[in-house]
């Protein structure tokens, strides 16, 4: 229950960060994908099912606020969460490389699928320019933001485990 509320607060925090605060700190027109960082952190630390549920609600929140058809973002986040959840088997609390690589790859997958769904299908073929001007800056900026966000979420996760008595110091 506590975990549910904490995850919900994390989700809303990420949403606000991504849509409001970071729009003042945009670099080359992109903002970091904080919700994706949250989704991948959950996938890496807790596995596929919680990650997919988090992904579902994150995507729904984005879609309900910004797009007319609701659900596309949710599907994309869920695909990323499902795949990233396999890395839960490699989970080791002091490893920062694997989550970083996962976030980098996850953001690429998300943006690439988004390009295919919303741009390629409308006949916009110039993938290289989209890659250079939108996908790549977004991947880099997201990883940069993850440097601050992942340790925070991960620390919170450890704290909750300790409160639940599942691990000792």
């Amino acid at each position, binding site marked *: 229950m506590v975990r549910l509320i904490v995850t919900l607060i994390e989700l*809303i925090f990420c*949403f*606000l960060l*991504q*849509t*409001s*605060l*970071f*729009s*003042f700190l945009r670099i*080359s*027109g*992109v*903002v970091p*994908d904080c919700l994706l960082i949250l989704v991948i952190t959950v996938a890496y630390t807790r*596995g*596929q*099912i919680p990650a*997919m*549920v988090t992904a*579902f609600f994150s*995507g*729904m*929140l*984005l879609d*309900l*606020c*910004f*797009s*007319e*058809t*609701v*659900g*596309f*973002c*949710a*599907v994309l986040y*869920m695909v990323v969460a*499902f795949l990233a*959840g396999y890395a839960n088997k490699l989970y080791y609390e002091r490893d920062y490389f694997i989550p970083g690589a996962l976030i980098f790859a996850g953001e690429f997958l998300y*943006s690439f699928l*988004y*390009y295919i769904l*919303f*741009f390629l299908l*409308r006949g*916009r073929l*110039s993938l290289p*320019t*989209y890659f250079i*001007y*939108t996908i790549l*800056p*977004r991947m880099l900026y997201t990883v940069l933001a993850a440097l601050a966000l992942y340790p925070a979420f991960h620390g919170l996760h450890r704290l909750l485990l300790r409160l639940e008595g599942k691990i000792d110091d």
Partner: protein
Amino acid sequence: MQKRRRRRNNKKTITILPKHVFFLLFFLTVATIFVSYRFPNLIQPVRDGIDTVIIPMQKGINVVGSSLSERFDMFRNLKNLQKENEELKAKVEDLTLQMQLINQEKYELNGLRELFALDQKYPDYEKVAARIIARESNGWYNVFTIDKGSEDGIQPDMNVMAGNGLVGIVVSVRKNSSTVRAIIDDSSKVSGMFVKSSDTCIVSGDLNSMMSDGRIKVTMIPLNAEIHESDEVVTSHISDKYQQGILIGYVTDIQVDSSNMTKTAYLTPVVDFEHLDEVLILTELKESFELEE
């Protein structure tokens, strides 16, 4: 014996595999995509509900964020300000002089118009000011949320301006906020018109050229249109959603299409979309007759 029983028990217990959850949620989202596409009114209460929770927080963050960025800008600009002030003062004097001349001409024009019983060409539209509180964060689209909604009298398809240029159009309205699609958005299309020659054209947002050099596309310009570099483009009279005569931007790079039937050009918008934080919404909807079924 015991072993066998345990095995049987294991078989009976239902284990929920991740793929089951995935397909369950997947079909749920497909259902919501269908419902929101086919019956948009059904999910309106959900949108309103989220609105009441999220909007106050976004407003709060926005106040903090904009004051921070203003302070940064102030430090950065302090040096330029004095110089700019002098330049502007000189400009003001220059402009007041021009104003007087123009006012005189306006009297004359009004007199002539009355003679011709013509309406004002560009009526003063009523406007409501609003603040941008959130932006769509994908980086693919240019959609943003403003802090005025149906309770402030905003309706879908109202035009949005900033300064004297066109920003976009209201696409969906909730109780206290609404979503605006900018003209530089990749899926936006505006019917435009060249002021000098009255040739119509289509101004369509294009992420590709917007990201590389801050311009959007103009297509379907008639081949015989007499247009030149940096001509003004305004919204046209034949558009069924945009009010007539709102400045969109200036054209560059006019080229003849490969089909040899139309011309294509690029357009630099007058609105600075990078630093946009306050917009004006025209509360008048364009009158258009709908086909009766």
